[in-house]
């Protein structure tokens, strides 16, 4: 029996989000081997807790970082969602919001930061530069998108994205966390290193 999960976000109906198909495909994949009802309820409870308490890592390389700071400031206030505890140490953060351009020199550093984070962790690519290289696509020193070496969960396009766009991306991430499995399942398999 297929369990249809529709993650709820307070005060925005499910249908108003774009890209519900990716979520539904994920749900189908995760529940492919059948799902245990009791564990499912426990999963839901824990995922509800986790999705409301995603602590970002303070990581900003360029212009999008200023919009990230404006997001935490008084007018847009991401503390309402519980995100304001931005930890500086990667071991204590839940997600890394890659705000700004990633250059060839910075790429190994970012990969090391990502490796140091504790599971479960998420990556949000913010701004045109992190999504695909942005205005600097043709440069010899810019990595065209952070998904070349990190598994990205949510992309937030814009140059820079408005704080409202940030929120939309974070809510999509919250929905994605809510459909994950916690007990008895693997959410994402890393590709085997061929070298």
């Amino acid at each position, binding site marked *: 029996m297929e369990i249809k999960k529709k993650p709820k976000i*307070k005060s925005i109906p499910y249908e108003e989000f774009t890209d519900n198909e990716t979520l539904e495909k994920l749900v189908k994949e995760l529940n492919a081997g059948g799902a245990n009802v009791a564990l499912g309820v426990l999963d839901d*409870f*824990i995922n*509800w*807790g*986790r999705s*409301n*308490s*995603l602590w970002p890592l303070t990581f900003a390389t360029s212009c999008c970082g200023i919009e990230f700071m404006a997001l935490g*400031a*008084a*007018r847009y*206030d991401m*503390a*309402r*969602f*519980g995100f*304001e*505890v931005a*930890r*500086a*140490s990667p*071991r*204590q953060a*839940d997600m890394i919001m890659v705000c700004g351009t990633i250059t060839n020199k910075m790429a190994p550093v970012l990969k090391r930061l990502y490796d*140091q984070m*504790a*599971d*479960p962790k998420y990556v949000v690519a913010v701004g045109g530069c992190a999504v695909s290289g942005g205005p600097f696509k043709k440069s010899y020193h810019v990595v065209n998108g952070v998904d070349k070496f990190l598994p990205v969960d949510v992309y937030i396009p814009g140059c820079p994205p408005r704080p409202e766009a940030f929120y939309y991306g974070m809510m999509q991430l919250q929905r994605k966390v809510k459909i994950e499995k*916690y007990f008895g399942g693997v959410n994402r398999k890393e590709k085997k290193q061929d070298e």
Partner: protein
Amino acid sequence: MFDFSIITHWIHQALTSLMPEGLAILIECVVIGVCIILMYALLAIVLIYMERKICAFFQCRLGPNRVGKWGTIQVICDVLKMLTKEIIDLKHSDRFLYNLAPFMVIIASFLTFACLPMSKGLEVLDFNVGVFFLLAASSIGVIGILLAGWGSNNKFSLIGAMRSGAQIISYELSIGLSILTMVVLMGTMQISEIVAQQADGWFIFKGHIPAVIAFIIYLIAGNAETNRGPFDLPEAESELTAGYHTEYSGMHFGFFYLAEYLNMFIVAGIAATIFLGGWMPFHIVGLDGFNAVMDYIPGFIWFFGKAFFVVFLLMWIKWTFPRLRIDQILNLEWKYLVPISMVNLILMVLIVVLKLHF
């Protein structure tokens, strides 16, 4: 004032009539231990929520308000998340010390928490050198911090831990001196006696000038003890990443996080007990009607009210002032606070000997 010792005696009688004394005491200890842990966790949740909302209001914004009405369930989500995070095993760290450090901090915290008098008869640890034991137990926390810095195999953590160690050990002197000043006034170190003696007026009013000075010094030094407020250089985020707990994740980090808030509450609780009367209501000598009305309000409401008031003061200071540099912190302690405390002690002794207090 309702006396909880009636209930505790009744429970003890009931248990000893059913089983040998040793087993009864064992069961009581286990039950009290569980109660303390539960209270600890609940208080931590309330304090974290309080901090986030208060700091938000100071900063012209709303705090958490999406999870539960007014964001009350937010901290429970944080706790859930912390419990389900991976605990990372470092490769080159000193494994035993690294894992021991959070537990040392929590144990020190529990021991001092157990001394606080919540209401009449509702104390866990109450013997004749209560205040002295309190000061001694709170010093164990330093070991946890130093072990955390050393065991992490990380230069930043080590710098943070060294700074923190120097700071805490220095400020214990100030705390000791200010409490000593009050002990001179109180004449006893047993905590339940201290609170009982404030039935005709809190010590901060009885001791007037030296008591007020001791209160202010105690608040400053208590702030520094818990690495909060203007003295949070060891874990200064904008300088050393996260200081001595950089390398901890998951529940180990959760312990440090919780211990910080509870230590602040314990400092506030001791201030409330020694200076502001603990669970004793506000009595004015001579106004018996007023005193009777005050007695209707239960003891633990008085205690928690006073403690939360002092916590609010500490949070207010933290979110307004910038940070002090480590040499300025140590300067403040050794060149200003310690001499002032010593003069204050002499002043209090004079007042007690010449019976100039109320």
